[in-house]
C-alpha cells in the first residue's frame, strides 16, 4: 500500500536525506531547520547542527521559531558568542554544509533575500542577508531547500544577496579559500543540481507523481532535465511519522507560550 504525503512533506524528507551523520551543518531557520532536525531524528542521529546564534551541536526537541530560541541553547553542547561563531567556526573552516532557504533563486543558484524591484525604491523589501552571504562561501558546500514556483525560480535574481555561481556561473572560479557552493537544490517538485561545466541548475530527479511539465510551469527560465532523470524515492512510514510528530510538537509549543500585553 502506498502512503499518502503532501508535496511539503516530500520536500522536507528529501532535504533531510541529503544530510549524513558525518556532516557539520550550519542551519538556516525555516525549511532547512525542519529538514536538518528530521535528519537528526531519523537516519543521521549524530549529524552536528549549528545555528548562527552560537549554539554548537544542538538537539532541539521542537523546531525553533527564531534562530536563537532558548531550546537551541539548552540542548546544545555549548554556546559561543556570535563573532566567535562566524569567525572561528564558519570562516575557520569547520562547517561542511551550509543549509539555506531563500525568497528567490536563479539559474546559477544565486539567492535573493534582500528585495524585489530596485534597491533604492523596492517594491517588496525582504529581511536581507543575515548569515547567508558568508555561509554560502565559507561552508565547504551548500544545500538549498525552497518551494518551487515561478515567483521564486527566476532567470536572474533581482539582487544577489548570496552568491551561488554568480551572474555568469563563474563567480567562484579562481577565488581562493572558497567552498564548492550549492551542490543540490531540493524543492517540493524535484531535485536540481548544478551542471558540472556551466553551473546552471539542472533537474536530476522528479518527485513521485510530478511531471516535467509541472516543473517547466513552475520555473522562470527554460529549465533543463538530466539525461538520466530519476524518480525521488517516496517518504517511508517512519520518516512521515517522525516529521509529523515533530511538527505537531512544534506547533503546540509555539502556541502555548502565554501571549498578550507586554
Amino acid at each position, binding site marked *: 500500500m502506498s502512503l499518502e504525503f503532501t508535496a511539503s512533506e516530500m520536500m522536507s524528507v528529501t532535504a533531510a536525506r541529503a544530510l549524513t551523520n558525518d556532516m557539520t551543518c550550519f542551519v538556516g531557520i*525555516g525549511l532547512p531547520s525542519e529538514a536538518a532536525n528530521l535528519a537528526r531524528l531519523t537516519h543521521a542521529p549524530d549529524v552536528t547542527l549549528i545555528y548562527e*546564534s552560537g549554539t554548537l551541536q544542538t538537539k532541539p526537541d521542537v523546531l525553533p521559531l527564531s534562530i536563537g530560541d532558548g531550546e537551541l541553547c539548552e540542548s546544545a553542547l555549548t554556546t559561543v558568542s556570535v563573532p566567535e561563531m562566524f569567525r572561528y567556526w564558519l570562516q575557520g573552516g569547520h562547517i561542511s554544509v551550509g543549509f539555506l532557504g531563500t525568497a528567490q533563486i536563479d539559474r546559477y543558484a544565486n539567492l535573493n533575500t534582500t528585495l524585489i524591484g530596485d534597491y533604492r525604491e523596492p517594491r517588496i523589501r525582504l529581511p536581507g542577508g543575515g548569515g547567508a552571504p558568508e555561509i554560502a562561501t565559507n561552508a565547504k558546500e551548500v544545500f538549498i531547500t525552497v518551494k518551487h514556483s515561478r515567483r521564486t525560480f527566476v532567470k536572474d535574481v533581482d539582487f544577489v544577496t548570496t552568491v551561488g555561481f554568480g551572474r555568469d556561473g563563474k563567480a567562484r572560479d579562481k577565488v581562493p579559500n572558497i567552498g564548492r557552493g550549492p551542490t543540490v537544490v531540493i524543492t517540493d517538485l524535484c531535485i536540481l543540481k548544478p551542471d558540472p561545466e556551466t553551473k546552471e541548475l539542472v533537474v536530476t530527479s522528479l518527485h513521485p507523481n510530478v511531471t516535467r511539465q509541472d516543473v517547466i510551469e513552475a520555473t522562470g527560465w527554460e529549465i533543463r532535465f538530466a539525461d538520466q532523470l530519476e524518480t525521488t524515492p517516496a517518504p517511508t512510514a517512519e520518516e512521515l511519522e517522525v516529521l509529523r510528530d515533530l511538527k505537531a510538537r512544534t506547533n503546540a509549543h509555539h502556541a502555548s507560550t502565554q501571549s498578550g500585553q507586554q
Partner: protein
Amino acid sequence: MAEFLPLKEAVSKYINNGDTVAMEGFTHLIPFAAGHEIIRQEKRDLTLIRMTPDLVYDQMIGAGCAKKLIFSWGGNPGVGSLHRLRDAVEKGWPNKLEILEHSHAAMANAYEAGAAGLPLAVLRGYVGSDLPKVNDQIKFIECPFTGERLAAIPSIRPDVAVIHAQRADRKGNVLIEGIVGIQKEVVLAARRSIVTVEEIVDDLGASVNACVLPSWAITAIAEAPQGAKPSYALGYYDRDNAFYKDWDGIARDRETFQEWLKENVFEKGAA
C-alpha cells in the same frame, strides 16, 4: 564604576537626540524595556544599529525615533516581515529611514573590531554578493602577506550601547548567560552603555569562565524585571513566540500599531 539609576533617568541622561545607539541581544535578551523608555521619551533622529532589528526596532522606527538603520537581517524571525520597518523604507512612514545593510558576519566582526579599538574589521566575506554595490561602507583590501582579497568594513563605535542581562551584583558587575550574542562586544565598543537587568543580587553566581562585564566597563545599570519580554531571558522566562506571531497583525496596519503603542508603551511607565 557603573552608576545605578532608574531606567527613566538612565535613558534621559545617556541617550540624546541624534545619537548612534546600538541595542543588542541576538534573539535572546533583547532590551525591550529600554526601547519602550526611548519611545516614551520621544528621542528623535537616532541612528539605530542592530544585527536583527527585531520587534524592538520595528516599534522604535514606527514611533518615529530613527533616521537611519544599520542592520544585517530585518525580519520577524520565523514569521515574516517587520511591517513598520518596511513601511518606513517603502513609503517613508512616519519618516524617511536611511538604511545601511551588512551581513551578520560583517556586523559581528565590526562590533568585535570596535571593542578591540580598531578602525576596521577584516573578513573573508561578501564574495559575489551585490551588497557592496549598495553599501559604500564595504570595501575590499589585499592581504599584505598573502595577497588574498578580503572584505573590510569600518568598526562599529556607537555613542551608546544598550543591552539586557540576567543580573548585576551590588557593585555593578553584570552576568550574561545563554546566547551571549554580541553583548560584550557592543558594550566595549561604545562610548557609553546602559545595561538593564532582571535583578540585582548579592552574588552573581558566575562560573570561572562566565561572560561577566565588570562594573568599571559599564556606564549605567537599571533594574528592569522582564525587561527583555517578549524575547526571553534564559533562566527567567521563555520567548513569547505567540506574541511574535501576533505582532505581524498588530504592525501590519498603521492605526492598529499606534493603538498598540499608546496602550502598551505610552500609557505604561518605566518599571
